[in-house]
């Protein structure tokens, strides 16, 4: 079954209470942050805390991710030394500007794996793109390493770099989002959208989730458990969509049995992309538990 990344909950790395509770919600991924949410003087303490939590707390089937500090600094290398050893988490690289940034991090990860008898290549990575240069290099970043499972937009730094600010309709992010999405698709990896910081604006949040879902993103970084439900609602295929997808897949299977080359359903031609979309809808429906094997909705 495919790994769902609809919701990636940010958890500040130096907050034991939040680290303790992070597993009780329904999000797909937990992202422990050692970078921007941790003050310079507390980097060591946060690193110990996240390391010990990864070693001892059972977060069930949730995907675990750790955002490390810049891997060209001692602090970033210390983060990698700790987190790679746990073999529990994906390394999220911050402020990625080009393929070289990914390769530098990968080199450190490779060394730590080799020194500790960890199977080579088993540590996966994600890259966050948070600048104009990063967006323009999105494709080379996305294609730079087999370890990458996704790329993400970090909008706060990105809009600052653009010399603008975030607006309700997100027009300033459209180009960056599109670049990141296209790069992810070209590389065959996931695209994760940025956080929505106004926790109390539920309507604005839903609009943004609907927008990124329509653009094609696999999910969104979130900063509060209250945001989980909305994202999952938007990302859950409707009964109507599932039924339509089931009909398409049935029609194509029937046509294959009959040896028919041209397939139509309700007067509309079904071609390869239509089948691929239907299959994706069914995969997602199964993954989120609204469709059972055997076709029961």
């Amino acid at each position: 079954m495919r790994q769902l990344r609809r919701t990636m909950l940010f958890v500040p790395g130096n907050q034991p209470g939040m680290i303790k509770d992070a597993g009780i919600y329904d999000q797909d991924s937990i992202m422990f942050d050692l970078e921007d949410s941790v003050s310079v003087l507390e980097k060591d303490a946060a690193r110990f805390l996240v390391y010990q939590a990864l070693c001892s707390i059972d977060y069930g089937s949730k995907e675990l991710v750790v955002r490390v500090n810049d891997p060209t600094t001692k602090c970033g290398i210390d983060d990698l030394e700790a987190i790679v050893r746990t073999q529990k988490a994906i390394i999220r690289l911050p402020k990625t500007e080009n393929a070289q940034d990914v390769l530098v991090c990968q080199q450190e990860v490779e060394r730590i794996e080799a020194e500790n008898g960890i199977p080579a290549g088993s540590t996966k990575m994600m890259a966050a793109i948070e600048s104009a240069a990063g967006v323009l290099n999105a494709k080379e970043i996305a294609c730079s390493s087999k370890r990458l499972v996704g790329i993400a937009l970090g909008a706060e730094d990105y809009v600052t770099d653009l010399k603008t600010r975030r607006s309700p309709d997100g027009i300033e992010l459209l180009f960056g989002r599109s670049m990141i999405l296209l790069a992810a698709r070209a590389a065959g990896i996931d695209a994760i959208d940025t956080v929505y910081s106004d926790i109390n604006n539920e309507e604005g949040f839903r609009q943004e989730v609907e927008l990124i879902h329509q653009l094609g993103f696999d999910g969104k970084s979130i900063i509060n458990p209250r945001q989980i439900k909305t994202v999952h609602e938007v990302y859950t295929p409707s009964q109507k969509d599932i039924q339509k997808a089931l009909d398409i897949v049935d029609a194509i299977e029937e046509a294959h049995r009959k040896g028919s080359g041209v397939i139509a359903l309700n007067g509309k031609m079904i071609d390869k992309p239509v089948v691929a979309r239907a299959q994706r809808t069914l995969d997602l429906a199964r993954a989120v538990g609204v469709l059972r094997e055997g076709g029961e909705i």
Partner: protein
Amino acid sequence: MEIQQTAVAGTMESSDIMVTISPNDGKGMEIDLDSTVEKQYGKAIRKTIEDTLKELEICHARVRAVDKGALDCAIQARVKAAAYRASGEQAYRWGDAVK
């Protein structure tokens, strides 16, 4: 590892523990614990602190811990952070890879 100076790690927030470690001049380990769950878990918290210091090969230290209901992993993390700070050591030793 040797404790050279007094150092603190952790906070007084719920689910955290504030650990202060100081040198103890060859007098072994002294642990002074103040915990919201002292009655139920005092012994276990002391043992976790002691075991963590032993793991770091620290034999002499004075520890003051104010616990606000921290999990074992948080206690271990705060003791380690305070101990490294108190020793001035920055070459961190991480445990073996977790299986």
